[in-house]
């Protein structure tokens, strides 16, 4: 007879590993299937992990996990074609254990994470794909994978942004391009010493740097640059529907961004090590599917848990927290041996207890606000223009800053529009 698992977790990304680990630690028989050759082989990101959150799962994880750098410096820059206006925040607190956040590379980190899940007692089967769900009437009772039927009391779909399982379970439809951003990224290798000199870093300190500006050609989105140990993760994130509407390719925008003088000087003598792409579900609370059915839960990107705060996008941290919450719901259900939708609905309770649903609720108006094209094609230019006028001294008498501002605004944006946008910032943030 085939082994019957308490839980089958599909996908060994951050959601699946966090879920599998929590289940295994509670003593549930757990199978984690991963379609990649190894956990992490299909994963990419541009992001940072929260130290305190991961510290809950693995005390002092930074001592052994393949993290890259702890983030001490956060930067934000507005770019026009030939100028940059930047703000930087650094805090000594961010350099203290358990560290605020880390840069890391998914393919390396997730592989380590999945090993830990295995050590905790789960079976992690890499190179195995969940092709379909197993049904008993309207109840999901396992998966079909590699030509086999694998029965389980509950299936947790952590199969990522294109979750075909959540669609097969009837919890969601094919997503729309306006609800997705496309991330395109390069890993560029730079000798460690050169990188540290360039970014003025010592030891394992790192930088997380976000950009907004003219390089996206008015398409909602931005760019990022994170320092790894001896490489940079650099990429852009742009709204998919606007890309096709404007007949623009993300790679061309990425190239434009990389050529900006403020960016290019950090990349010289670097060597491309990898080119990757991924979708990000960025419509927030409004477009999230249902998270549970009879014998079935959805977590991470598959549930479109992505927090859009305006300054950054957060998926992986929510994936971990939602994977843990899904596991808690399964553990409760196991105690009652009741895996019905009603029993698994405690997932909502655990999600509300964690920061996942609270943060999504707090920032629920942001995705709509960020559709405003002025954020991308007016304000960065206005900010750079004002800075240029303030700093320029060409021997001519200068005008009052207010007059300069009004001149820069002319034809670009009205006072009423600025007032309305400020009001919306207040509402959204």
């Amino acid at each position, binding site marked *: 007879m085939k082994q019957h698992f308490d839980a089958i977790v599909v996908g060994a990304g951050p959601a699946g590993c966090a879920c599998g680990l929590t289940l295994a630690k509670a003593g549930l028989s757990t199978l984690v299937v991963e*379609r990649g*050759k190894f956990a992490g082989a299909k*994963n990419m990101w541009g992001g940072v992990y929260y130290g305190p959150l991961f510290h809950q799962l693995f005390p002092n994880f930074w001592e052994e996990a393949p993290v890259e750098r702890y983030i001490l410096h956060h930067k934000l820059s507005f770019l026009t074609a030939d100028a940059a206006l930047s703000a930087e925040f650094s805090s000594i607190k961010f350099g203290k254990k358990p560290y605020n956040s880390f840069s890391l590379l998914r393919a*390396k980190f997730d592989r380590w994470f999945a090993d830990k899940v295995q050590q905790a007692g789960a079976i992690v089967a890499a190179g195995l*794909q969940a092709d379909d769900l197993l049904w008993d009437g309207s109840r999901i009772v396992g998966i079909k994978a590699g030509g086999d039927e694998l029965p389980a009391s509950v299936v947790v779909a952590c199969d990522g942004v294109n979750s075909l399982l959540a669609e097969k379970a009837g919890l969601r439809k094919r997503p729309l*391009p306006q609800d*997705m951003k*496309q991330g395109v990224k390069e890993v560029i290798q730079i000798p460690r010493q050169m990188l540290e000199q360039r970014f003025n870093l010592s030891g394992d300190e790192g930088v997380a740097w976000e950009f907004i500006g003219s390089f996206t050609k008015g398409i909602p989105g931005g760019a990022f640059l994170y320092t790894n140990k001896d490489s940079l993760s650099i990429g852009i994130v742009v709204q998919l529907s606007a890309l096709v509407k404007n007949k623009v390719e993300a790679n061309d925008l990425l190239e434009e961004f990389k050529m900006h003088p403020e960016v290019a000087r950090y*990349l010289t003598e670097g060597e*491309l090590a990898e080119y990757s792409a991924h979708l990000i579900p960025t419509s927030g609370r409004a477009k999230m599917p249902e998270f549970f059915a009879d014998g079935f839960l959805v977590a991470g990107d598959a549930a479109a848990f992505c927090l859009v705060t305006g300054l950054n996008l957060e998926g992986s941290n929510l994936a971990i927290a939602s994977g843990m919450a899904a596991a808690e719901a399964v553990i409760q259900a196991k105690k009652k041996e009741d895996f019905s939708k009603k029993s698994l609905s405690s997932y909502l309770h655990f999600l509300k207890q964690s920061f996942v649903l609270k943060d999504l609720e707090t920032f629920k108006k942001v995705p709509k606000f960020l559709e405003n094209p002025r954020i991308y094609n007016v304000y960065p230019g206005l900010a750079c223009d004002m800075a240029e006028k303030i700093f320029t001294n060409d021997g001519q008498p200068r005008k009052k800053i207010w007059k300069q501002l009004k001149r820069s605004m002319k034809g670009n944006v009205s006072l009423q529009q600025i007032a309305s946008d400020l009001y919306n910032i207040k509402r959204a943030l």
Partner: protein
Amino acid sequence: MNPKKIEDKLAVNKFDVDQEVHIRIKEDICNQCKELDCLYACPAGCFTAVEDHITFSFEGCLECGSCRIVCEKEAIDWTLPRAGFGICYIYG
């Protein structure tokens, strides 16, 4: 310096290319298509417009799912490569 073209960038990636094609386009629909959204959506340049028809090569596919979502005509029969095949990120 770094390559700029998609095909040169893909050349540094590690792929385990399957014999089996995982994405198929419905040529009768695609060859009539005027929007060509897939051309701009695909970050790997897998779709090419050649004179009066669209060609698709799956080898450089990064499995992002963009083409599936943008095609309003649902002319792209999208699945994932078989387990163990396709893109294999080393960094991610």
